[in-house]
């Protein structure tokens, strides 16, 4: 039976790449650690090879009392990079709603809901984005993506899935 999940975008860590720009975080929750999200993202998606069929991961980050997450990674059916390879989406959803959510594949629906904002940055040339700026490309892309985003939460209808990988508690 189809489920409808509501995701607050401030709970979502979303990393993908553009046609020419390399992987960047387009959505980031408030950092759990002062150092930011990069290492935590790498821990969650270590040894995950995205395919057309979304990989679903559950676990928790061992920070404070534990930070549960529900994550997914998959390749885009339509968007491709400058070498004509499919791009990958890496999404980690944090918080109580993520922990309570049933095992359903929410990633494709979420990316579809974010599609307009993603399309607004997808084809940008990195040199053009960086021109005259001192901030990191990642920061500049995220700012443009957020400017094009009119939503603060997304409702995603998705089908339950069986294959779900449990990662346990990951040390930061």
């Amino acid at each position, binding site marked *: 039976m189809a489920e409808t999940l509501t995701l607050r975008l401030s709970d979502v860590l979303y990393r993908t790449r553009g046609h020419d720009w390399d992987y960047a975080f387009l959505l980031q929750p408030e950092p759990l650690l002062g150092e930011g999200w990069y290492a935590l993202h790498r821990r969650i998606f270590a040894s995950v090879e995205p395919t057309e069929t979304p990989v679903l991961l559950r676990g928790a980050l061992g920070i404070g009392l534990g930070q549960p997450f529900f994550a997914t990674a998959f390749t885009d059916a339509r968007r491709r990079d400058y*070498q004509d390879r499919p791009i990958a989406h890496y999404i980690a959803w944090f918080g109580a709603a993520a922990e309570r959510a049933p095992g359903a594949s929410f990633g494709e629906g979420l990316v579809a809901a974010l599609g307009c904002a993603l399309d607004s940055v997808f084809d940008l040339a990195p040199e053009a984005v960086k021109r005259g700026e001192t901030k990191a*490309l990642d920061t500049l892309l995220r700012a443009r993506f957020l400017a094009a985003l009119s939503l603060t939460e997304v409702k995603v209808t998705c089908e339950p899935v069986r294959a779900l990988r449990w990662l346990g508690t990951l040390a930061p």
Partner: protein
Amino acid sequence: MPSRPEVRVALFGMKGAGKTTLLASYFGNQQRNAFEERHGYRLEAADAAQGSVLLSRYYRLEGGDFPIGTDGFDTLRFGLKVHELPTPSLDVVWYDYPGGWWETAPSDEAERDARRKALELLLDCHAAILLVDSERYAREGLTYARSLLDQFRAEIRRIVNELSALGKAPDFPEQWLIAFSKADLLPERTTALTLAEELRAGAADQLLGVQKAVGGTSSFGQEFLLLSAVRGDGRRVLDAHQSLGLTTIAPLVLLGALSRVAEKTGRGRVWGTLATVLDVMRNVTDAVDKLDDFLPLKYRVLTVLIKALRTKEGLTVSAEKLRERQKSAAKRGKALDAAAYALRAELASPDTERAYFKTRFTDDG
């Protein structure tokens, strides 16, 4: 000190240069039964999950598709396991340095820290490879090569600054291979020698610039290699089982160390095609017992293997004979001898002659 010898190689290339495909092909092809039957050894991934990811990328290649672009620095450790031996005889460790790091600043402190840790590992490498994308080289020629080398020099300078800030001396590997990836897209008559000549003539200033940046005693700009992970047309993989040069990297690193011994013991500069280099190495065998006197500390983990690599008859025995000796050594439980014969057999492969060239060092650069 690792429990068995390990050859550590750093891989540099801009995004899209083919690093992910090379590593998937390197591991995947060596899992095939046909490879094991022919070569008498195979690779084992030290981390099973990592091996599984590489295999899934390799199956994608077999299905005709290139793997998706990857994100982040990876350490990939493989054990070389010779037939009839219970455990690997040596490890080959790859450090895959993301091309995106050349072009973008870190997104946060965690990524900055990950980059610092990667740099520290880089210093521990025995050799480094800079990938030149043959597809772009065929299309854009020396303009691309010069731009790549200039960007790489800038990246090396950034690394030097980072290391200095950490209080570390920028002790880069001495051996650098300039490797033309996607060599299947080059005309068949192209060899490492012809490409070496083109670059030395048309990008001499840029080569010298990088060589100075990585340390004046390095072999940067002197060793050239053709690498091909698959046969493809640039967009689709036509044959995932046709590769060139990948299995020669580990033995070339050992050979590079031997070359330095030859040079340091006054046996002359080593240069030329692979056959010539191997021939010159015959003169070094009596110096091999004193390897530790001539090799930097980080190479000493390899000296046992380098000693096993050389024999009195030199290095120019046929691949078939070497594989027979590999089998015989394995049967006797001589793990390092067996591995050394396996590596020497890779150097004796006819393709390698086309794939490798070491230019003569000239004082005028």
